[in-house]
């Protein structure tokens, strides 16, 4: 177990380092210049140049690269190109916000999908199962930005039950979490159902039934426990994708999250902020996968990592 | 004799590195084959016997360069470079990829497992024609003719061409495997436990077929097996392998009558004898085959040898010649009188 953790952490550092270097190179290859953006389209060249000089964009690339990497090694991710705030101060609250959104959405998606998926498998190929399948397919193929805007008009504008933007009270969580969670729940339900149907077709289930165990016990105890392994993988990957997929939800509900920060940073060429967000994003993602791997050992005692 | 040598293996070694840790450093190595010498004459069958894990399969594959050996030389008499002239001894281990591809026509392999050695997605015709396609020989109809010939030679009908391997029994599949090995009329065929996966009743059929083919096409076999009973009838000479080395090598009759290594004796005691009155103490070897990663010091067999003494623990025995080309590596072979199974 310890070896798994250590090797993952080392991989994390290497991956992050590669990512940072890659992004650095990339951002200087693609068109678009922060000084130009700041100065506006109509600014004369010498004034754009003065912004470059003022903010250090005019230094040779190698100098910028080594300065940046040197600082990163000391835990300093530099300043935002524009707001001149330390990147860490910008990124950390965003991570918390996104984690809150994605976490709640995952929780919603996980519970919904476990319940719906299990019942669906239990009533395999009967009307309930078919209903669940249709609903989840509709959920999968409605883009989040459509469900989001419909949710906003129904629950916030017309019914005035819920607020739209921000995240100060629990009410603010309802719409974004429901929107993001519903999409994930739709995907998960189908997969939980697959895993459960598979588990229910195993010999030990027949044995359990033969022993006269009530169907509830068979499904929720025997089958669910055995379907858990693929389901955990699923949820682990799902959390990562929820984190990333939250960009759209964050934009619609004006949720001050990491995804939106990253998109803004890309579009406004704020390289330090982008680097910082991606660095921490990668770390979160790797940590989530690590936790999933650890949960594996709990779900399936046959697996060990030594 | 030298004129007739087909294969000459000298000091063949094959080791696999064991990597550990994040940096994948080589921390140890498995010496699967550790200095094997073997000479096979044209037209003969040599048996290579040992327990599973002793390196006999690896040795066979190293000779064919299916797994490139770590050291030693493998010389095969071949005409690939002779331009129609007389065949010469050619070192397989130093062959270029191009030469190696040509060498494949002179040396072939029959696999142990007739189930997994045939691609289930291909038809029998495709399977047997594959070597021809690989080597770029003949056109479609010529290849089909050759496939029919080969099928006939191994006792299958031309109507089998379009079928898939799973439609055949184990014995039939092994016949397909043999047919494939025969495609180029190779000089050397290494048969890697060709019958051990088959039912006993079928084993004899396949072995008889192999013997028939040998006389028909003048084949030379290196016959690998894990017990002596199989090789007894087909082999002229038998080599016994233990932990990557040959511990005894002799004519079949000599070996069976007069084994000179305790390991051979132990193997032989497991051979069933078709005589209800024959009573014999079965020698049960103690313990498992030691790990080839850290072979025991001295004679590698000493931890399991009922006759081991202090010298066995300390010194590595060398393969000694006892005349009549009977070789064995045992410190105490002169002191012991090991029991064989009488000629039958």
């Amino acid at each position, binding site marked *: 177990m310890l070896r798994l953790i250590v090797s993952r952490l080392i991989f994390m550092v290497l991956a992050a380092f590669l990512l940072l270097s890659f992004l650095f190179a990339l951002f200087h290859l693609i068109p678009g210049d922060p000084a130009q953006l700041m100065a506006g389209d109509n600014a004369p060249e010498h004034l754009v140049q003065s912004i470059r000089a003022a903010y250090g964009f005019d230094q040779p690339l190698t100098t910028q690269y080594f300065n940046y990497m040197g600082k990163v090694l000391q835990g300093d991710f530099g300043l935002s190109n524009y707001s001149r705030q330390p990147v860490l101060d910008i990124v950390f609250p965003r991570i918390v916000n996104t984690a809150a959104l994605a976490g709640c959405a995952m929780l919603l998606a996980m519970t919904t999908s476990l319940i719906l998926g299990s019942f669906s498998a239990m009533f395999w190929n009967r009307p309930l199962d078919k209903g669940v399948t249709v609903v989840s397919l509709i959920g999968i193929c409605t883009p989040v930005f459509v469900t989001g805007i419909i949710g906003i008009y129904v629950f916030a504008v017309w019914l005035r039950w819920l607020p739209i933007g921000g995240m100060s009270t629990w009410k603010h969580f309802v719409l974004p979490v429901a929107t993001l969670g519903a999409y994930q729940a739709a995907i998960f339900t189908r997969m939980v159902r*697959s895993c459960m149907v598979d588990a229910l077709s195993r010999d030990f289930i027949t044995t359990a039934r033969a022993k006269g165990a009530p169907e509830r016990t068979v499904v929720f105890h025997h089958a669910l426990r055995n379907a858990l392994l*693929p389901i955990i993988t699923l949820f682990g990957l799902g959390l990562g994708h929820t984190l990333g997929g939250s960009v759209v939800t964050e934009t619609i509900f004006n949720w001050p999250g990491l995804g939106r920060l990253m*998109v803004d940073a890309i579009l406004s060429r704020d390289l330090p902020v982008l680097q910082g967000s991606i660095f921490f994003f990668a770390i979160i993602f790797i940590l989530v996968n690590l936790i999933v791997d650890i949960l594996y050992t709990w779900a399936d005692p046959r697996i060990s990592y030594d | 004799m030298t004129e007739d040598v087909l294969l000459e293996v000298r000091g063949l070694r094959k080791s696999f590195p064991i990597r550990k840790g994040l940096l994948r450093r080589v921390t140890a190595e498995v010496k699967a084959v550790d200095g094997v010498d073997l000479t096979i004459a044209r037209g003969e069958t040599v048996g290579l016997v040992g327990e599973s894990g002793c390196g006999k399969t690896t040795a066979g594959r190293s000779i064919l360069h299916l797994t490139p050996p770590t050291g030693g030389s493998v010389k095969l008499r071949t005409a690939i470079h002779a331009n129609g002239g007389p065949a010469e001894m050619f070192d397989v281990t130093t062959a270029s990829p191009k030469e190696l591809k040509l060498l494949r026509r002179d040396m072939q392999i029959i696999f142990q497992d007739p189930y997994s050695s045939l*691609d289930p997605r291909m038809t029998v015709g495709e399977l047997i024609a*594959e070597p021809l396609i690989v080597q770029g020989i003949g056109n479609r109809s010529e290849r089909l003719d050759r496939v029919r010939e080969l099928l006939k030679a191994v006792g299958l009908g031309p109507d089998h061409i379009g079928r898939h391997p799973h439609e055949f029994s184990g014995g039939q599949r092994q016949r397909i495997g043999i047919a494939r090995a025969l495609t180029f009329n190779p000089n050397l065929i290494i048969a890697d436990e060709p019958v051990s996966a088959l039912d006993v009743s079928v084993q004899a059929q396949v072995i008889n077929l192999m013997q028939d083919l040998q006389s028909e096409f003048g084949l030379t076999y290196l016959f690998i097996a894990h017990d002596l009973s199989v090789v007894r009838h087909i082999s002229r000479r038998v080599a016994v392998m233990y932990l990557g080395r040959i511990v005894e090598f002799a004519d079949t009759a000599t070996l069976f009558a007069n084994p000179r290594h305790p390991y051979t004796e132990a193997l032989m005691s497991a051979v069933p004898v078709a005589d209800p009155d024959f009573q014999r103490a079965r020698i049960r070897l103690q313990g498992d085959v030691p790990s080839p990663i850290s072979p025991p010091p001295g004679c590698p067999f000493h931890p399991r040898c009922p006759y081991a003494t202090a010298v066995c623990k300390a010194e590595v025995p060398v393969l000694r010649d006892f005349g009549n080309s009977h070789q064995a590596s045992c410190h105490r072979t002169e002191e012991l009188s090991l029991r064989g199974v009488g000629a039958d």
Partner: protein
Amino acid sequence: MRNFLRQFSRDRVGVVFGLILIAIYIVAITAQWIVPSDPYKTQLSQGMRPPSWEHWFGTDQFGRDMLSRVILATQVTAKITTSALLFAVLLGVPIGMIVGYHGGWLDEIIMRITDIMLIFPIIMLAIVIVVIAGPSERGVVIALGMSQLPQFIRIARGVTLSVKQELYVEAAIAAGAGWPFILRRHIWPNISTPVIVQATLTLPVFVLNASALSYLGLGVQPPTPEWGQMLNEAKELLIAAPYLIIGPSVALFLFVISANLLGDSLQETLNPKTKGQRMKREFQKFSRRGLKPGKMRVERAARAEIQR
């Protein structure tokens, strides 16, 4: 193949949705000829008309016929997703096969790179790529393709790793076959099944990610219609002209559902695990509960879906 068709034709759901998918592709291919009117023809006097007999899905703000635009969008969407798929398959499968077969440091490097690519959530990766390649069809194709590249590398590599252990591969080597021959003749036939299944399941993901890119302003650009982008434009006018959302929604829905269900069915039919004994066993079990055999989604199905 005949065997497969016979087996597959028993799966009613698969056949129905397979036919729908084929119909969608036929619409895509023949889009130019079957559009009721020119999808680019603006008629400012006819802007934003609700659905009518003349315009089934209404007209957009420039008076363009939404039905024609949805039909053309089918072609654009099909072209984009299929190209992205080809990109991912044609690049990913050979890479996966080669590194899987040869192993060594190249394998290490490629696998680490795919790990890093998997760290990036698909949409993020796509955003970065679109910014580099420019928001155009090409950019979206590369972005989508790249986002699924690691999956195909991994599938191909995984299969290669297991197949190259097979004795029949060694037999081919013994016959003198080089690695290209082995990859082509022995390994590729084993990879095609999981690749086809993954491909069917990837198509709807591509469609949805393309629409998310459009929402962020990074998708296929106007006036070229694409479902996601049409949905996004309809969203802007959702209250003023709610009918604009009908056409693209219906198209997207049909496509995603058919591809998903077809993917599931193919998986069952093609997956040897679900054939033969397994099916028999399940039949015995489920027949007792009054269920017919047929649709078994197994762990592998879930895994394939998780990987997306």
